[in-house]
């Protein structure tokens, strides 16, 4: 009798256990789907590799490329966008302050045009939300291009070639909005892909040197990454210049541009607050800071550590970090070397 009981109970027990395990396994599998887990990882990552937007209108971008180098966009045909955002000098001009029409000097250092579409706001003080609004700035600034849209449209309309180009691409005549549209499309395409660091992030561990990898670790541990992060390694937040020490007092004297975001909001807490700039191609865009006061990258790193982090960095750490920063220099945007004809068809 006992044996019979055992014979019946044992399989029941085994089945019940199996059932419980099955249930537990299934419910735990349901708790997080694959995409959710991926999302979680994605959201936690600090720096991501650059990507060229896929929905670009190539024809518009090519027209924008023509316009970018067109000096008719300034008073007296003296300068073009390219004059201060040279593709050879990392999308900037290597000067402390750019030279506009009639030899006038700007009041802030020209930021790079490369990857600028990925900045969360435009200008050092973030007064424009996007590139569409940004273009008005230099066009109207008497220290930069010092002209008006009416003048530009008139000049371009006199050029038969331009009329034809606009007709072909927009199927309409030349206008302010279409010029801006083309320029923004081009600037959006100015992405410096495949920097060694991006390749490293994508899994190519040989892309960086030992020193550069050490530099990245220090970049993270010292806390540079607290502000220079995201896809653009910067360009997604505001920070006051001189968190730990007074930068302006130690530099000597105040300039008009030093008030920063205060000009935009009028709030006291926005005084000396600037957009954190992107560190991509930083090797090429000297001199540094909004005032263009620092020509050396190593010194820039040292100053940033002092004023922003309140830290004094050893020489070898500065060197490593500088090496790491050099690995952020990407390839020249493809759009610059592509021929217009190849897309025209």
């Amino acid at each position, binding site marked *: 009798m006992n044996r019979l009981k055992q014979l019946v109970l044992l399989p029941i027990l085994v089945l019940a256990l199996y059932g419980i395990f099955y249930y537990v396994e299934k419910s735990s599998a349901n708790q997080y789907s694959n995409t959710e887990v991926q999302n979680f990882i994605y*959201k*936690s*990552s*600090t*720096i*991501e590799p650059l990507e060229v937007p896929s929905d670009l209108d190539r024809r518009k971008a090519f027209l924008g490329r023509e316009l970018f180098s067109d000096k008719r966009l300034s008073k007296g045909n003296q300068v073009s966008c390219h004059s201060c955002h040279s593709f050879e000098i990392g999308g900037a001009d290597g000067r402390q302050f750019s030279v506009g029409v009639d030899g006038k000097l700007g009041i802030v250092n020209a930021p790079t045009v490369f990857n600028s579409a990925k900045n*969360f706001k435009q200008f050092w003080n973030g007064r424009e939300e996007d590139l569409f609004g940004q273009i008005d700035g230099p066009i109207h600034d008497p220290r930069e291009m010092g002209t008006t849209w009416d003048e530009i449209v008139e000049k371009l309309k006199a050029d038969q070639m331009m009329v034809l180009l606009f007709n072909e691409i927009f199927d309409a005549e030349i206008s302010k909005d279409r010029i801006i549209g083309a320029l923004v499309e081009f600037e959006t395409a100015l992405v410096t892909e495949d920097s060694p660091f991006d390749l490293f992030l994508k899994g190519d561990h040989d892309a960086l040197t030992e020193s550069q990898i050490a530099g990245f670790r220090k970049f993270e*541990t*010292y*806390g540079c*990454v*607290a*502000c220079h*992060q*995201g*896809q653009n390694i910067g360009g*997604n*937040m*505001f*920070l*006051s210049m001189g*968190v*730990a020490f007074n930068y302006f007092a130690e530099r000597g004297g105040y300039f008009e541009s030093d008030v920063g975001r205060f000009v935009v*909001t009028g709030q006291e*807490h926005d005084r000396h*607050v600037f957009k954190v700039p992107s560190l991509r191609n930083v090797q090429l865009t000297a001199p540094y800071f909004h005032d263009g006061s620092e020509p050396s990258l190593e010194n820039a790193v040292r100053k940033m550590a002092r004023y922003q*982090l*309140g*830290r*004094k960095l050893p020489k070898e750490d500065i060197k490593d970090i500088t090496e790491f920063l050099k690995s952020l220099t990407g390839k020249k945007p493809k759009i610059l070397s592509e021929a217009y004809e190849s897309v025209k068809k």
Partner: protein
Amino acid sequence: MNPLKSRNKTIFTIISILIIFALGFIYSRSSVSDITVHSKILHTLEQSKIANHDLNENVLRLKTFLLQSYDPLVRDVGKQLSLCKRLHSDPTYESLRREQTLPLLNDYCQFLKEKADLIERYKTQHSILRNSMKYLPIVVKHFSDTKYSDTTHSLFSNVILYNFDRSEDLVDNIYELLRKLPKKLSNKKDNEMMESLRLHVNLIVNYSVTRATLEEKILSSLVIVKLEHLVNQYLDWYQVRQNRGISYHFVLVFVCFGLGLWVVIIFKRLQSLTDDLHDLNANLEMKVAKRTKELSEAMSKLEDSQTVLTQSAKMTALGEMAGGIAHEINTPLSAILMNAEMLMDRADQASPELIRKRTEAIVKIVARVSKIIMGLKRFSRNADDAERSRVLVQTIVDDTLTLCSEKFKSHSVNLEIKLDRSDLTVLCVPEHISQVLLNFLNNSLYALKDTDAISDKWISIHASKQDDQVEISVTDAGTGLPESIQAKLMQPFFTTKPPGVGTGLGLSISKGIVEQSGGEMFYDKRCPNTRFVIRLPA
């Protein structure tokens, strides 16, 4: 009902216009809003909610250092702001920008912008705080083997605590501990570290306060409340509008139905009216034809009776004459008889002279009788077709008198004939004029014969020439006719004679005969006696 009256027409037009306006009004109110637009609006509002939710979630992730990059935050804020912008300017979302909802929408956008600003500041505070919090343990560790170990350790724990519980006591405690630490240290490295410690502790205390307040502000921001308000208000409005639209729709359907019915009724009525009109038209034609036929029949009957009447008048005149004629013939006949009897009686003893004398008398009388009969024959001949000819008035008068002179004599009426000239002629049908004269004479005789009022009974026939006309008048001794009779004198069937005696046609037919001959006939009112005049072309 007569819809063609101009007053009715105006009223009809006004009513039509009013109905059209009313229909337009109802239609405008009945429009149920487009479901695709509605769902689009709801979708966008829902997306805004989701974006807000994501944003809050990311802020919390940031706080717990689960989020390292600000890119997702930037993306969320950007998305929510662009949605807000779209709600504000895209024409699709027009119905969100009405009187009731626009302030709510503005409120929502305002709060959203404030929240975005707060998030910008929060990012800044967060970065700074994060670095300092990371650096502080390194500094504390540096002093772990020195005499400041206890102070720095308790400082560190107080700072960590302060991050969670920002009480005044803790701040006092922290500053107290900071004061305990020396301002300057002999070792250069230690000195630097001590400065860093002070700097970062101060930074943490300052920034954790602002960060915490910002965090509170962000997470307790009324953005979602405002959004809910907006959504509720919109849904309320939509529901009300939908209900109203549906009810007006029903009204519209009913009104249209009623109008349709009305139009059908009016149409039917119009149709029956036109049918009636058709029938009437057809009947009218028939009636007209019938009446025309009747008229022409009556006309021919009348014409027939005219001839009959003329004939009968003639017969009457004849009948009247018959007595006269009998008398006329009877007298010579008795003369003949007398002469013949005398001859018969004295046939033996008669001298040839007597015989000759008597037979001469008989021949003479027979000739006279023959003449009377000739006149009668001439008179009775129907002379309608006779040609007009120039005739001596004398002849006409003589012919007439042969028929009736005896009658006048028997009634002792003097007959006077007076012709201005014996060679007067008239252009006429002599029988007709004789008939007319006979008619006059008969009338006069009838008037005179039985009256005692007039002692001197006479009738006068007078003919004279006036320009190119000849006037023949018959006057009798009567004292004229009263005016009431004068007016009706020439009317057919008017007579003063007792029934059966006269037809009342004598004068009217006479007038017709005279006018047919191109002359005229009238009663002379100016004459004190009874005088009839005829004028005929000479």
